[in-house]
Structures are given as C-alpha cells and as structure tokens.
C-alpha cells in the first residue's frame, strides 16, 4: 500500500471522528446548559472552546462566549480548522484522493455526508439550536463507520482507519474528562442536582449514560464517571478501549506478536495500554487527574507522530 494512501486513510478516520465527537459534545452540553441559570451559563461554554484547542482563535472572532457563538464557531466556521464542517470537508478531501482505493459505497456515503452538512444554513440552525444538525452529523458518522466496516476489506488499509479512529477518540475523551473535571470541581459551588446534571451530560456526550447505570449505582459520582471514561475495558469510548484498538490496528499492520513491538508507535501504544490496564482510579486521583490525562494526551500525540514516521514519511534520497 502506498504510504500516501495509508496516511489519507488514517486522517480520513481522524477527521470523521473529530466531527462526530464535536457534534456529540455540542449537542449534549447545549441542552444541559439551557436548563441552567444565567450565571453558570457563561462559565460552561468555555470548556468546549478549550477542548477544541481553539481559545485564541475564538477570542479574536467573537466578543462574547455564548451559546450561539460557540455553536457557530464549532459547527460552521470556515476559519476554524476544527469546526465540524471543516473536519467533514477535510475527511472528504482525503477520501477523494484515495477514492480508487476505498469502496464506491464509502465514497458516495462520505460525499453525501459532505453535501448534506453543507446544505444546512448556519443562521437557521443557530436559531433552531444544535440538536437537528448535530444529530445528522453523529448518525452520518456512524453510518460511515458501518459502510466502511461492511464494504472495505479488513486489510492493512482498514487497520490504518481503525488506528486513526481510535487514536482520535482516545484523545478526545481524555480532553473531555480533563476539561469537564477541572471545570466542574473548580467552578462555583453548585447544588448537587446541578452537578449531577453536568456529569450526566458528560456521560451522554460519549454515549456512555446507559452503560454507566448498568455498572454503577446511583447517584452519579465524578470519580466513577472518570473511571468509566478512562479505564473501562469494553466501552468503545473509554480511553483504555481506544488505546487497545490503536495497538491492535498497529499490530495487525506490522504482524507483531503479543509482548513484542515493531516500531516506536507500537511501543508507546503498548505502554499506554499497560498503564490503563493496571492503574486504579484511586491511584490516578492521588497522583492528580489533570497530570495523568495530560500524559495520555501527549502520548497520543507521540503515537500519531511515530505512525507517520514509520509508515508515511520517506527520508528524501537526494
């Protein structure tokens, strides 16, 4: 497989995942926040911008952090490279460069998703609130997963997609937990019921609400939510699960056996999986959640760089 094609598959998956993740978070938070008082309202929009890593850009464009501005910025703005529309457009651009290598169904699906997303009129959607838009994006992304899974041979190309998807998801979950945790615990003291609402929103934003209730007893406790999102063995949005997927995808490409690694990306992925498998949530809190999650995020970054170094880039032979 051409290195460029592997790279495009990897990024195709990452952009789709980023669009989906942003849509989820935007949707759930928006509805939770609308139920709250004006005071906490202002505070709660900021995490979304911080999470996207686009604080500076946002401040330059908008005088105020409010529902409409955040929604517009994260969903529609062409000058925000991580807006949902930009992610989908970049995903489609990647798909277009490799359309001879993906299934016709995949191409038509993502091309349809692109046209559908671009068919929304930002002004109308801002007036209507993000649910309609975000829902379409979310299910559009799910459908693309499904179409990919069902029509693309599960060969090495598919494993690059898998690694891209999982790496992006793991990183997004880490950012989500970090930002929300920091915000909820350091914010102004709030009634228990309100806190509860916030944690429900966090769970819902990754589709883990029902799963949480099957595993833990009410009430919703921040530590348990963190445990679920960081360490859960099977929930597809937990960081541990994502890291395991990254590792599995990389191993499938290289053919490495258990306990061995063929390159730096695999070594780091293995280390991440080991940590997440044997650390307990109490230990994590003891050493500091923020530091722990920052480590995870930076490891995800390094894994991405090492995948590129191993498979995508060639030293120029002059």
């Amino acid at each position, binding site marked *: *497989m*051409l*290195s*460029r094609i*592997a790279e495009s598959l990897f990024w195709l998956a990452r952009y789709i995942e980023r669009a989906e993740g942003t849509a989820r978070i935007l949707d759930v938070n928006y509805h939770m926040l609308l139920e709250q008082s004006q005071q906490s309202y202002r505070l709660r929009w900021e995490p979304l911008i911080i999470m996207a890593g686009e604080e500076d850009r946002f401040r330059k464009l908008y005088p105020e952090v409010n529902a409409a501005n955040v929604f517009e910025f994260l969903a529609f703005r062409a000058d925000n490279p991580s807006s949902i529309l930009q992610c989908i457009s970049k995903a489609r*651009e990647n798909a*277009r*460069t*490799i*359309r*001879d*290598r993906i299934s*016709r169904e995949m*191409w*038509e699906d993502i*091309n*349809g998703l692109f*046209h559908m997303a671009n068919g929304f009129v930002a002004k109308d959607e801002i007036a209507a609130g993000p649910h309609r838009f975000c829902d379409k994006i979310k299910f559009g992304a799910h459908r693309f997963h499904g179409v990919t899974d069902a029509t693309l041979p599960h060969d*090495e190309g598919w494993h690059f997609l898998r690694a891209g998807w999982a790496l992006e998801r793991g990183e997004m979950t880490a950012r989500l937990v970090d930002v929300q945790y920091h915000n909820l615990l350091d914010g102004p003291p709030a009634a228990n019921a309100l806190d509860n609402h916030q944690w429900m929103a966090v769970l819902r934003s990754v589709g883990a609400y029902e799963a949480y209730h099957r595993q833990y007893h009410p009430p919703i406790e921040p530590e348990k939510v963190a445990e679920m999102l960081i360490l859960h063995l099977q929930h597809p949005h937990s960081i541990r699960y994502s890291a395991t997927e990254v590792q599995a995808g990389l191993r499938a*490409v290289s053919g490495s056996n258990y306990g061995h690694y063929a390159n730096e990306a695999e070594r780091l992925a293995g280390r991440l999986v080991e940590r997440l498998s044997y650390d307990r949530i109490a230990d994590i809190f003891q050493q500091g959640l923020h530091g722990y999650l920052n480590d995870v995020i930076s490891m995800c970054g390094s894994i991405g760089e090492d995948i590129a170094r191993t*498979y*995508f880039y*060639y030293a120029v*032979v002059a």
Partner: protein
Amino acid sequence: MGAVPKQIAKRGLFEGYDTGGFYDEMFLASGQPRPPYARLFQKLCGMAPSQFEERRKLADLSFLIQGITFTVYSDGRGTERLFPFDLIPRIISASEWRHIERGLSQRVVALNLFLHDIYGRQQILADRRIPRSLVYSCPHFRREVIGVDVARSIHTHICGIDLVRDSKTGEFCVLEDNVRTPSGVSYVLENRIVMTRTFPDAFEDLQVLPVNHYPAELSRILRSLSPRGESEAQIVVLTPGIYNSAYFEHSFLAQQMGVELVEGRDLIVDGGMVYMKTIRGLTRVDVIYRRVDDEFLDSLTFRADSVLGVPGLMGAHRAGNVALANAVGNGVADDKAIYAYVPEFIRYYLGEEPVLRSVETYICARPEDLGYVRDHLPELVVKAVGESGGYGMLIGPASDRARIDEFRQRISADPRNYIAQPVVPLSRVPSYDATEHCVAGRHVDLRPYCLYDGDKVTIVPGGLTRVALQKNSLVVNSSQGGGSKDTWVLRGEN
C-alpha cells in the same frame, strides 16, 4: 409525405422544434426522424415534459452523489461543477460507425508513424514532405527525446480525435487530434451507467454496443509495455492530484484497471529505476500511464520548478527501465498547424488516401495564408496552435470588431502560433433546454477514444458527444459551458 411526420414532431417535448437549417442528427430535412432514431423519437414523444424533467433531476443527483465533477478555476477558488449531462442520446448507425472506425484507425497509425519518424530518423524531413521549420518551431516538439526508444514503437497509445459533422456536406471530418493526454473517457463510461439507470426504457428494442471494455483494453496495452514482462508488470496512473480538473477520471481509470493511482511525490528514482513509496518500502514501477503534461514530468529534464513529476524519470525512461504512455513529445503531432499535414502523413507513411476529411486550414506561418487570414477574420475561426480546451480561440462571426482587431495584432506578432479555419456549421442533436423546458437543436461534436497496441487500433463504439448547451454556441468544451450526451452505436443495420 412530409406533412404527417411534421405533425408528429410537434407533440410534447418536441413542440415547436426547428432544425434551423443545420444538419440534424435526429431529423431528416423532411421532418421525419432518421431510421436509427425512429424508436427513440417515439418513446420521447410519449413523455410529458414533467416526466422528462424528473428523470433529468435523477440523473443530475446521481452524478452529484458519485462526485463526478470537474473543477473550474475561473473564480479563483476552484469550484467543483457537474459536467451537464443531456438525457437525449446521440445515435450513430452501424455503417456510419464502420466508416469512422476505418478513418480513425488509419489516422492513429499514421500519427504514430510520424512521431516515431520525427523522434528517430526524420525521413519525412529529409524527403521534404513537411517543412523542418514548422516541426522545430513547435513548442511541444521535445528535442530531449530524439533517439529515445519507446516500448514496442508505440507513441500514441491513447488518442482522442475530435470529429464534427459538417452541416453543409453531412460528412464527418476531423477537427483536432488529441494525442497527448486526452481526457473524457470516464464520462463515456459513467454516462452510459447513469443512462441505463435513469432511462432504461430508451434502450428497449435497440441493440446498443457496449463501451465498458475500455479499461480492460487500456490495461492490456499498458501491461504489454512492461520492461520486466507482463506477468510482473507494476502499472500506475500518474495524476497531478485532486486539484486537476480531470482528477475524477484519473482515479476512475486506476480503480477500473485495478492499479495504483500515484502522485509525483509517491514515486522516486533510484539507480535508474522508478519506485513507489509504500508502507513496506520501495516497490518497482514498470509502466506509467501519466496524466501529467510533458513539461512537468521531470524537473531535471523539463521545467525545473515542477513539483508534479518525478525528478530523474526521463533518465529511467531513456534507460528502458520504465515505459510511459502516452510517449513524451506527442504534442508535435497534435499541433494545430501540423494538423494540416496529417493527410500528407497518411499518404506518405501508408500510401493511402485519407478516409476522413480534415478541415481546410490556413497556417499563419505561411506568408500567403497569413495575408488571407488577416483579410478574412470575421468569417474564420482562429486557434492558437498549442492550446486546447477551447482557450485562445477567436470565432470570427460571433466576435465584435475590437476582439477581431486584437486577434489581428496577436497573429501578426506571432504568426507561428496561429492557424485559421472556416467556421464549420456543426450538426445538431435535439437537447433539453432546462430554462425553456423544451427540446431544441444544439451543436455537437464527437470524441472517440482510440487505443493502439502497435498492431491494431481499438475504439470503444461511440465516444464522448459534447454538446454546446448554450443557444447558438459552437463551443462544446466543458470549461466553456458545454455538456455531454450518451453516444450509441447500433449493432446491425437500422
């Protein structure tokens, strides 16, 4: 006799249809449909405009979802546009197609012999059958490949030769030879697929020859060029990338042939061999179907600022380690001034008379022609010799004084760069006018795609019919508002 069919012609979609004094592909001068079109005409007459409109929308949607688009750069952003597709097919009878096929085969073989000669012994120059100065002044004549052996002596693997039917004589004649990197064949194949999906009933009772064997035939020819033999042949399609207007076609052909689609940055030359960069290391490449123009192919040989090609590629090619299709330097054969000599090539190399007529051409580089052209600009079509895509063109009768004067100056300043031809009144085919909601005659040309394997020329039946959808327009290029039609060649007499 003529009165009855005329009444038929006025029903439904064809209400008010007027052939306008041009050769109409569907109707005889009497108003009766020509025999190959008779069944189609009946079907269309039975359709309400609203039904037709519905199918048209379906076809458009299908092209949009498949992303079958081309890119226009005129607005500075590179917008993707649909290549307008007209649902009414153009039909060619079996006997007419045999004639076209014979003429094109002859022409392709002669063009190939010319290229082989001009980059080899140059016998035709020694025999003074074409002025040396005309060949050497052609900007697409590549001195760099003189004496380079090409695999199996094939230069013109893929040709797209533009034909038009002259309304005055009703005859097909050759308007242009495209022997560099002609595009559009993907539309031939996709148009047929969309047509069979949205308008299946139109095919009933007609035996339309299939076109879908093109990729297999192309792949066979490319494989035969491999320096390591066919069984090991690693073939790639080289594209300038997604911003090229024909990108869809590049990826389509790669996919259909089951070969890798590469960009220049995916390839590397090492030790005189070409390799592609894969996740498992370097893999040798044997044959490149390149859709990158000569001047961008190799920054060490041609334009030094090109990033689209592969540095060192020409060295590997010269050493016989990689085959290129089409060959480098073909532009000298489709230069619009050299075009006037192609009938001469046919006589010189094959000892035959041309089957297909060429359009009378004034070569401004010849002083006697230049004088005539300057005096008759309002009646002539002027073309820049090295341009394609309908750029750099003057259509005398449709231009105002200022533009004509501008061209007169341009021609005087650089006569070698221009040729002139009389305006050919192109034939017309009924086409749907979406603004008027009716069917009207629109001018068409025909670009059949010819594949040459060194022994015989294979042509997929039909080709791309391009249609000037603007009323009264003669320019069919997609970059200038043209569209296309499915083109049917019928089996057996009809």
